[in-house]
């Protein structure tokens, strides 16, 4: 038996990199590696979105059942734009998402992460661990706690401990300040996600760079503004985008706290009520899907806008080439 040439050996190998020479070494190789993941993404992420849009063009509801529905074109979509409650739901959703995002999920998260990275390590760790407790508490328990915090005198803790001793008027705070209530309740949970991401990002800024900025004459505030925030731009973008999208579609805390009363019916809660929890027993699946479809469109618009706003393409650096 003679020795094989290099070409013969590589042609034998299943992982040959010579295109077209072996069974697997061709331009469709990537399908084998990407295929399973693409299938999962397709079935669980893409297909539901398509189904949402398909059903939104039907009159499917508990009246028609799954068999007697018919195509009604854009009727559900037109209904959204002509619905008398639409503008109110848009308003509360915008307020809820904007203020929770800016003041808590990004704002408070940033403040917490900066504070806890500027105090001794153990204290910072303990403080951050405390902020994670609401995340591991069942949401019903967490909301019950807030209800008692904000209940009217003589039960409510805020009213009994702060307002009454100071001679201020007491009230049932959830109904008196419903927007503040839903923002606080969501924000105190939501901040911990960004806090964890930002903390690890701040801790990974090189010690030398932090020291260099001090030597260059920055005080703590200037260092935060000129070094820390620009250095964590990528996680800032990620958290802002991710939290915008999850806030737009989140409703469980609001549902348990107010169930949409006092004008707190955000868009996703409205979709849930119409599609899965209809007071009149008519589950309006078609209409609910159109409501959900709006959320999908808005989410995609936000994604693109954020990528543009944070100059995503600038964050990808060109390779370094070693020259004198």
């Amino acid at each position, binding site marked *: 038996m003679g020795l094989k040439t290099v070409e013969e050996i590589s042609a034998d190998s299943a992982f040959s990199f010579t295109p077209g020479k072996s069974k697997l070494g061709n331009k469709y190789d990537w399908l084998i590696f990407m295929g399973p993941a693409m299938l999962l993404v397709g079935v669980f992420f893409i297909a539901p979105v398509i189904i949402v849009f398909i059903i939104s063009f039907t009159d499917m509801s508990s009246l028609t059942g799954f068999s007697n529905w018919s195509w009604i074109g854009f009727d559900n979509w037109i209904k959204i734009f002509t619905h008398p409650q639409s503008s109110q739901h848009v308003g509360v959703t915008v307020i809820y998402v904007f203020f929770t995002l800016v003041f808590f999920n990004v704002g408070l998260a940033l403040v917490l992460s900066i504070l806890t990275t500027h105090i001794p390590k153990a204290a910072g760790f303990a403080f951050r661990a405390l902020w994670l407790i609401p995340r591991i508490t069942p949401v019903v328990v967490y909301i019950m706690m807030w209800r008692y915090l904000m209940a009217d005198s003589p039960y409510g803790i805020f009213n009994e401990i702060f307002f009454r001793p100071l001679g201020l008027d007491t009230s049932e705070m959830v109904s008196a300040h419903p927007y503040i209530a839903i923002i606080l309740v969501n924000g105190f949970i939501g901040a911990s996600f960004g806090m964890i991401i930002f903390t690890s990002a701040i801790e990974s800024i*090189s010690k*030398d*760079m932090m*020291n*260099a*900025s*001090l*030597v*260059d*004459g*920055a*005080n703590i505030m*200037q260092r935060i503004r*000129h*070094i820390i925030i*620009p*250095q964590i*731009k990528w996680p800032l973008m990620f958290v802002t985008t991710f939290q915008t999208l999850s806030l737009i579609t989140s409703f469980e805390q609001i549902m348990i706290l107010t169930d949409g009363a006092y004008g707190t019916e955000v868009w996703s809660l409205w979709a849930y009520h119409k599609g899965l929890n209809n007071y009149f027993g008519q589950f309006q699946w078609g209409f609910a899907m159109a409501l959900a479809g709006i959320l999908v469109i808005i989410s995609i618009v936000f994604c693109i806008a954020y990528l543009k706003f944070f100059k995503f393409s600038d964050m990808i*650096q*060109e390779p*370094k*080439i*070693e*020259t*004198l």
Partner: protein
Amino acid sequence: MRVNLEKITKSFKKVEVLEEINLDIKDGEFVAFLGPSGCGKTTTLLIVAGIYKATSGLIKFDDTVVNKLVPKDRNIGMVFQSYALYSHMNVYQNLTFALMLQKKSKAEMDKAAKITSEMMGIGHLLDRKVGMLSGGQQQRVALGRALIKKPGLLLFDEPLSNLDARLRIHMRSEIKKIQHDLGTTAIYVTHDQIEAMSMADRIAVMNKGVMQAYDTPSNIHDKPKTLFVATFVGNPPMNVMDVTLQKENGKMLMKLAEGLSIEVPLSRTPKVIPKKVKMGIRPQDLEIGKTGGLPFKVYTIEPTGRDDVIICENNGSMFTGLATPGHNIKEGENVKVSFDMEKVQFFDAVTEKSILWN
């Protein structure tokens, strides 16, 4: 700017990392802190910079105690091993960051950036993001950023360690030239003895938080105060062996082995002789030949171009010598090693201090 460190100590929790460091640096002097990693040289530098606080002791700049001053009020410029450039800024913004914080006008910043960048040979790169620069270019930006403030004291924390060998030699002379031209006092931390020897006016050799010696490069090399200094400085390192010193008939004799004694010249005769003595001799000060001296077997020969490094062995102890290429020594051969007795060093084997220079 003059710098004085008086009895500086530093402990992290209960671990003492610096033991009473005393140091005086003259105006315009270039001082190197030399030592192996973990010896406390960077800690000392960061204390001078004001990033760490000294546990005790005084730091004085021109007779002013600066212990309580934050880094920005110390009038210092610093260059880091990792360059520590602000990766989200371009070269211009990196250079002028300190001036921007001082609220200098755009015109002043432009002028300073132009002068500094041209001095550093990076004038054409001002618009580039620092991530797009090569290692050498980044190092120049880092140096420019330290110089642009016209600091009274320049601090270098192993600034050349991340560069390739050729560039390192080039930047070495460049840094020295700039420091000399500007007349700025400088402290330069390094673990590379060649850097320290070639750049510094004086070298502070440190080990395990203790300053072993503080002297000119030639004194550090020729008159090492401790065994550590003797073996750490010099390449290849100094050979060390146990010997006994005896006075006989008014002559000092160094006994190497049974029946082998060499007379110690007057210039190398210690005043007091401890019980146990270690003799040190640099590779260039011993001769490897066929006759006369201590018997060794050649273990290996390492050609370096200019010299061949001859490593010999005798009963498990290794000795390093140098020979000019073209010698006829072969591996495995039995040789005799003799010493230039005018160049030997003697140390107390217990305290490891020199008995010649203390």
